[in-house]
């Protein structure tokens, strides 16, 4: 009798878990979009005989069920904490560093020598064609090494940068050393893979010194806070409960009237290189240069005739505004979004007396995405 009662009890507990969640899942309506995952969730596939027999209907239906499963986000959180309890030091390719730093993982084995040599050759060509200045920014894993989990492997960007320096010679700006010196300051976001405005300011002083420009004073005391609840890309990957990052900018960059044009569209022209609209969304880093555009043109009131052409990734978005006091016109081009012939386009932008060209990438994006074809 006792055994029977005990068995019944077991059945009730386990069965109720299944029944309760099944019922809850059936009652609950579908969501279109997941905030946490930042993507559109699968919707119910249409049933037809053809779909069943030949078009993976059942697989689509399973994706739909799992995407829409009741309290999906909570299940994912449970799994994340389970991983933490198992002493895991990384989630989805993100290291859980000390001091609350999430640091993107880049494995040495992911970047082959061939790839490195190919990209450097391309860069060399561009430097030769345009007399360009090269700024390759190391990623957080190479600078915040003391915050990485023990023995966490990372792609050695120092070695890679030495190689770049060797090839482009006097065109190479050493950003690595200055970031290294400031490693204890807030130069990278904790929840995002970008450098902060302060990090960009470090890069700026290296740039000014290298190019012989008189450096503006972009110190921490001149920054203004615009957001303090920024949860960036790395946070989305690990989905842990954490405090938001603060986003600062330098008001000094707006002292002079500006004309900013995105993607050649005159009608969207504005008078600032910042887009506060993004501060109300998840993607707050989009504040700088209005997120990603193929081409941004910044015109200033400095009638000094100096023109700069920047070929860049998103690291440049918070960096480029710092250069405003030095140029009359700045072109900012992102090859990933640009459709057209880069060399010809640059030729068209070039005024008669020539222009400065700057290549600014973080090392990883450079290896993955840098492109230059005549």
């Amino acid at each position, binding site marked *: 009798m006792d055994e029977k009662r005990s068995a019944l009890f*077991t059945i009730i507990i*386990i069965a109720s*878990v299944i029944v309760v*969640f099944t019922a809850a899942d059936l009652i609950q309506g579908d969501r279109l979009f997941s905030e946490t995952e930042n993507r559109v969730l699968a919707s119910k596939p249409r049933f037809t005989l053809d779909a069943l027999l030949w078009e993976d209907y059942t697989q689509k239906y399973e994706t739909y*069920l799992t995407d829409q499963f009741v309290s999906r986000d909570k*299940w994912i959180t449970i799994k994340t904490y389970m991983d933490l309890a198992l002493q895991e030091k990384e989630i989805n390719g993100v290291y859980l560093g000390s001091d609350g730093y999430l640091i993107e993982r880049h*494995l*040495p084995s992911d970047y082959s020598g061939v790839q490195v040599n190919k990209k450097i050759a391309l860069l060399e060509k561009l430097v030769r064609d345009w007399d360009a200045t090269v700024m390759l920014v190391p990623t957080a894993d190479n600078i915040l090494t003391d915050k990485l989990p023990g023995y966490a492997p990372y792609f050695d960007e120092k070695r890679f940068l030495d190689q770049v320096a060797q090839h482009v010679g006097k065109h190479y700006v050493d950003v690595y050393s200055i970031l290294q010196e400031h490693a204890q300051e807030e130069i990278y976001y904790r929840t995002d893979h970008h450098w902060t405005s302060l990090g960009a300011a470090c890069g700026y002083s290296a740039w000014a010194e290298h190019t012989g420009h008189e450096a503006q004073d972009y110190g921490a005391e001149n920054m203004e806070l615009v957001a303090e609840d920024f949860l960036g890309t790395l946070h989305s990957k690990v*989905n842990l409960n954490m405090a938001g990052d603060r986003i600062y900018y330098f008001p000094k960059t707006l002292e002079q009237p500006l004309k900013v044009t995105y993607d050649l569209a005159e009608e969207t022209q504005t008078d600032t290189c910042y887009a506060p609209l993004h501060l109300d969304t998840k993607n707050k880093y989009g504040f700088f240069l209005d997120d990603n555009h193929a081409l941004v043109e910044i015109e200033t009131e400095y009638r000094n005739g100096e023109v700069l052409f920047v070929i860049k990734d998103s690291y440049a978005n918070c960096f480029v505004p710092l250069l405003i006091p030095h140029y009359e016109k700045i072109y900012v081009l992102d090859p990933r979004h640009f459709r057209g012939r880069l060399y010809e386009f640059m030729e068209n932008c070039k005024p008669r007396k020539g222009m400065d060209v700057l290549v600014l990438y973080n090392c990883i994006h450079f290896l993955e995405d840098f492109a230059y074809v005549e």
Partner: protein
Amino acid sequence: MVFSSVVFLFRFFPLFFLLYYLVPERMKNLVLFLGSLIFYAWGEPVYVVLMLFSTVVDYVHGRLLERLRGKRAARLVLLSSVIINLGLLCFFKYADFLIQSVNGVLGTSFPLFELGLPIGISFYTFQTMSYTIDVYRGQTKVQKNLLDFGVYVAMFPQLIAGPIVKYRDVEERLHNRRITLVDVSQGLQRFCVGLAKKVLLANNIGELWAFVSKMRFQEMSMLTAWLGIVAFSFQIYFDFSGYSDMAIGLGRMLGFVFPENFNYPYISASVTEFWRRWHISLGSWFREYVYFPLGGSRRGRPRQLLNILIVWMLTGIWHGAGWNFLLWGLWFAFALTLEKLFLGKLLSWLPKGIGIVYTLLVAVAGWVLFALETPAGILGYIRALTGMTGSVMDRQGIYLGRQYLVLFLIGVIASTPLSQRIAKYLKNSRTGFQMALYRFGEKFIPVAMLLLSVAGIVDASYNPFLYFRF
């Protein structure tokens, strides 16, 4: 349909069992049969026809064998059944492999069929073959009810990945079974344990192997290589034995008792013992339907060794259409032969620990052949394992070792009967506290496993889209 999915746990499972327990005794087989067809057709909406064909073929052959019992024609009927079953299996599983091999050797370019392998075909053809052979031998009665026979073949718990249930193991229960509360509760518990083995252990440890197997072997350190292959050893064990646990548990819930399939293989003190503990139902199938008919050990030592060789080549190739699987089978044939000749005796004199280490080494080396399918991959990995890449330990290896230390420890414990022993000890103890602990654990550990597994299943589809990556 796989067990570790939302659609199984929160759609099929509740609906099916509700119906199954509600309908009267004589309707249960019909519900089970139709439910199983839906279960199978969910993953194979086309090849379900093939399974039904196979069912009808063996049913008819069984009836014919019954009618022709004792006559010479019976042999022909048996032969016809074996040819059809093996023919189906060979066509779908090995045809492309054979064509590729011929093309490779002769430089020809015969086109491939490129048909997908029907899920579970290796398992259900072996099941139906056991039936006709047993009927022929008179070891089991013929099944006259097509539905009952259909239930035997299609029954969803073991249909896709075993255990390979012989007809005579379930014959009685096919038409006469009583389901008790204890059956259902123990079945549920067993299912939860199996699910946790698959989702929480196999999938998580498997990530390490997935990571290591994608690295470049030429630069891999010895440490990383060993961590990787040990991870694979855990993964395949928890994956497969977890599946068997789920199948056995579901079988209990249906009122069947399936044979056990795994019995802590990684504590075996010899390879011979390992194969009595690993995938038991397959081993016993080959023993009964191949090894014994070939004469087993009764026709002298040389013949026995030949029989071992044949059985293990077949066992190897059964696991997959590839030369590496054949090699894997031969590897075990080699170890078993040595044990038959002298090593077995030697091991029995040595301390048990040495036997266990030796067996683990043979098994792990076997998994290298099993997991890496190309000669280049196998050789490259062996170089890394033996330190021939010049690197013994590196940052990557140490990091991975620390990262997976806890999971490995759990894996080691879960590979031994320790938790079983603790449960037994608590259950049989007299003190109130220990009894209470047992009762509590027995009820709530499976539920916790179930909940955590669901978290694992849902998380597997976690896929943050980073449109603002740059």
